[in-house]
């Protein structure tokens, strides 16, 4: 088991290296000079510019710049935000925690809603109730998340007379949990992953129920779920968490915009507007790390549950 997991870790490291390279490449291919802002508004060219950069400690060649950046990243140094002048790492950390909360919470919501629906649809394929539930999931997934968010805010502030949404600060404590819950639930339902998870769970549970060893369990008079849960529930859930993580992170960008949630998503949006390269690069990297973490978790669960996997 340890061998498989350490191989997985090595793969993850290689992939993250690839991500940094792709991100840097995009940046490098961009029109304009990424470091122009550091010149403080002066427009220099040629030798003058090279001298100024040399004075600032920026390597001349592209690979020099890349390795310098990587070197910094590995040490936790993500540079300075071009917009605020503050170190990126600090902002990344504080915003990151808030987005992580949003992400993990919404994944839990998605699972809590989609897994029962999918399982029910698999066990009772022709029932009208299963169809209605599945279709509801499809409809909710097809609605634009931002519109849903505004409707939710409208309902909660106008119709239910609660305080207007404050951005995660400590005020209005007695309703604070609600303000945190709303974007989480919304992202959980609206990230577009809902319908896919329902579909996936339905397929997997159907498939497992048709397996020969499940027939043996029935013939034995054993509890069906006790034999089905590993391949029908645990593995699919691990797979879902790993594969839907990118969707949820993308959805977080939208939801944070709607609710003015001060997380990485809103930070990324701001950085894209301002062409704040250090920030957007750092966020890209952070996102990739979270996604790979999800994959690693999935692999761990797979190896733990599947007796054959440890020997592959």
């Amino acid at each position, binding site marked *: 088991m340890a061998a498989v997991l350490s191989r997985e870790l090595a793969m993850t490291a290689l992939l993250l290296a690839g991500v940094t390279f792709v991100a840097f490449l995009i940046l490098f291919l961009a029109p304009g000079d990424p470091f122009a802002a550091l010149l403080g508004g002066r427009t220099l060219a040629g030798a003058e510019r090279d001298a100024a950069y040399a004075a600032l400690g920026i390597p001349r060649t592209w690979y020099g710049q890349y390795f310098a950046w990587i070197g910094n990243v590995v040490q936790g140094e993500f540079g300075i935000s071009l917009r605020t002048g503050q170190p990126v790492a600090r902002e990344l950390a504080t915003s990151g925690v808030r987005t992580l909360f949003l992400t993990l919470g919404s994944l839990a919501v998605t699972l809590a809603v989609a897994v029962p629906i999918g399982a029910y649809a698999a066990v009772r394929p022709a029932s009208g109730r299963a169809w209605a539930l599945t279709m509801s999931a499809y409809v909710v997934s097809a609605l634009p998340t931002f519109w849903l968010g505004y409707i939710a805010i409208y309902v909660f502030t106008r119709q239910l007379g609660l305080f207007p949404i404050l951005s995660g600060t400590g005020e209005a404590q007695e309703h604070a949990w609600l303000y945190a819950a709303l974007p989480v639930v919304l992202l959980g339902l609206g990230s577009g992953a809902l319908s896919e998870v329902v579909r996936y769970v339905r397929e997997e549970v159907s498939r497992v129920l048709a397996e020969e060893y499940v027939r043996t369990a029935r013939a*034995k008079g054993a509890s069906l779920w006790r034999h089905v849960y590993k391949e029908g529930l645990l593995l699919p859930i691990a797979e879902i968490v790993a594969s839907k993580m990118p969707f949820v992170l993308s959805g977080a960008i939208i939801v944070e915009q709607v609710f003015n949630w001060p997380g990485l998503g809103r930070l990324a949006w701001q950085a894209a507007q301002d062409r704040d390269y250090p920030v957007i690069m750092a966020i890209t990297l952070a996102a990739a790390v979270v996604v790979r973490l999800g994959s690693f978790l999935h692999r761990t669960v797979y190896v733990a549950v599947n*007796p054959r996997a440890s020997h592959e």
Partner: protein
Amino acid sequence: MSAQPLLRIESLRTYFYSRVKEAFIRSVDGVDLEVARGETLGIVGESGSGKSVAMLSVMGLVTAAPGIITGRVTFHDDSPRELLAGLDRLVTVERRDGRIVSVAKDDRAWAAQAERNLRGVRGGKIAMIFQNPRAALNPFETVGEQIAEAIRLHTGLKHPAQAKERALHWLEQVRIDSPRLRYANHPYGLSGGMCQRAMVAMALAAEPRMLIADEPTTGLDATIQARIVDLLADLKARLGMTMVLISHDIGVVGRLSDRVAVMYGGRVMESGPASEVLGGKGDGHPYTRALLASMPRAENVQGKGRLPAIEGEVLDTINTPKGCRFLARCQRIHDGVRARCAEAEPELAEVAPGRRVRCWLYQS
């Protein structure tokens, strides 16, 4: 003096519906069978004859629609139990010219009723083992754990340590090598033969009244097949098991069975003592005779130079014919009976004590 049979099946019909062809697949089309206590009934027939589906129907393991539509299955446990009770209430069948053309069945309610009927019977009173043993065992659990589960479910031994001891005992009974080691193995680590032994152990560990073995040797290597057959014979002798053995391999059936039923096209064509039915004396159903002649044995080949195959194709269970089902392939037909064979299907009539044949050659 005839004692009550342990299991009696009457008029069992299990149909499947093909949406693509808009027609019924009449997999089991009116089957009557009996299994007496302590005897082994062998069911033999080609693929598609309905032998497996018939037993799966008894166990309530048929999931495709519409499934069982008529029939009565009585299991004479300490008291008689109707395993298909409540069936007539939930199924309406429409016939035309004696053939079923429409079925209205409340699948959901029927499945619920079947579950109620079979609770406690499945696994505990009637156990079943299947073809392809490695796929039939749970790949995520150890072999021993799966046997122990059967013990905990159906015997009085609830304590894990006790169940484990008993499971090891059964692993020894099936003569698996290194029982303690195999207990902790997962199915992927066992060969096909060992998996089948483990499945037999799992089935018998629940101490059932009857064992149904559905093609237990098919798919295994020839030498392993022989060993499994030996195992079953040994267990039969030592434990006095009641068993239903399904196989298309006549040799296997002949070695283990006391009585044999031959199925074709979803119906029983012949039944009787194994020695008589498989004796090849030429006084049985033409299909049985052809089956025996097509077995690769010395007496079938010597002097002829080639092995006689049964002409024609296996019966299409969608278009079941009006008359005798075997008509198209029958070698023993002659002009005297031809008209009758085409016109009507014969009954399963007794031609000798305990021996019944469905053929106009033996009926007037």
